[in-house]
């Protein structure tokens, strides 16, 4: 193993754990597929969150035991889930009324790119021949009160995902409030990206070098 491959910053679990600290008890939360789903594992003891899944369940519980799944009790990623005591089922138009109507407190999504203005691209590379598929992402970012992104700071190829302006097709314009990456927690402000917190062992210059737009320093 070369020295360059030493892990810098937070792991996926640590990113999810960091984000989980910032969700107040009693919040109605929609977690996207992938790293966002991990957040549920790290909610601090004593806090109760109600999870919404846009296919029609409020009060989503953890995955069932293997073999115990019900094909008609699934999440937005089409995986088997459970329903907690106090859960509610509803149809899609009501589910998206919860989303669009501003009733959901927080949505956590993955990202391909986020711009300094809070634009999000997370549904399509725009590559010719790709099958376009959008699901509920555009409704979520348009309607949920707070929208957080959780993502690696850079792509597998080392390109910044936090950029001046998105080059991939947008999911929404000026919709992201805060970004949690392996390297830092960053707010989207009217003045652009602002560092809120650096991951342990990571310095500001390291993050700035890997960010595709100016990063404002942490405000004390």
């Amino acid at each position, binding site marked *: 193993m070369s020295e360059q491959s030493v892990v810098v910053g937070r792991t996926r679990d640590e990113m999810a754990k960091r984000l989980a600290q910032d969700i107040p008890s009693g919040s109605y939360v929609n977690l996207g597929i992938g790293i966002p789903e991990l957040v549920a594992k790290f909610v601090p003891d004593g806090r109760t969150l109600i999870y919404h*899944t*846009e*296919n*029609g*369940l409020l009060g989503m519980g953890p995955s069932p035991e293997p073999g115990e799944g*019900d*094909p*008609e*009790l*699934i999440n937005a990623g*089409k995986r088997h889930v459970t*329903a907690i005591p106090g859960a509610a*089922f*509803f*149809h*899609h*138009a009501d*589910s*998206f*009324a919860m*989303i*669009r109507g501003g009733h959901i407190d927080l949505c956590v999504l993955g990202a391909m790119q986020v711009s300094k203005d809070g*634009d999000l691209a997370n549904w*399509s590379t*725009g590559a010719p*021949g790709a*099958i*376009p*598929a*959008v*699901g*509920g*992402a*555009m*409704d979520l970012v*348009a*309607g949920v009160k707070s929208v957080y992104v959780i993502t690696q700071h850079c792509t597998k190829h080392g390109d910044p995902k936090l950029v001046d302006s998105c080059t991939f*097709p*947008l*999911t*929404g*314009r000026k919709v992201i409030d805060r970004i949690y990456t392996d390297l830092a927690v960053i707010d989207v402000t009217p003045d652009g990206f602002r560092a809120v917190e650096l991951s342990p062992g990571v310095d500001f210059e390291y993050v700035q070098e890997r960010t595709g737009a100016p990063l404002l320093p942490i405000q004390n």
Partner: protein
Amino acid sequence: MINKQIQSAADAVADVFDGAVVMIGGFGEAGSPIELIHALIDQGASNLTVVSNNTGSGEVGLAALLKAERVAKIICSFPRTANSTVFPDLYRSGKTQLELVPQGTLAERIRAGGAGIPGFYTPAAVGTPLSEGKESREFDGQEYLLERGLTADFALIKGRIADTFGNVIYNKTARNFGPPMAMAAKCAIVQVDEVVEPGQIDPEHIVTPGIFVSRVVGVSNPAFESELVAAGESYP
């Protein structure tokens, strides 16, 4: 005496005509009315416009209807499935057109259509490629897109229990698009595990009131996409 029960899935879809707009319920396999879809494949109607959230898995159910090249156009939010190449092949060859719609906009277009509302404004998709060609308007300083309500000639829906008046209850997250599609179709056809007499469902528990439902078909032990795909089945 009202009795909306039809004895077979084949009889229930017998009058679906070439060129019809057909809404098909389901989110993934949850709520997918496989037996009604298979009956529609057998019946032979073609050149259909289908409104459905997904495009099916493997080569059963909705994917089988697509593979049989009965669908000229699909209005859909997520036409991609890990285990099916049916729709991607049709899309790339130009045999099936796609109108891609954000999931919440799709649900609301169906609901609005069923509620007699021809158009509405939504904040979803503003500033994205899916806003192209759409009228926009500002309300209270925010931009919204005009979206049209959707109606259909037929809807194929899966419920859990219906009575012979057409009142329906659903099963968990299989409810998904059923209630709004029942409202939006001239002829909503609902397959259920169990058909009961009026009065056997508590009126407080009814999710889709019978006025929205034209036909009810009992299909006990309905199939699931994942089980058929795992068994390597294709239809027909």
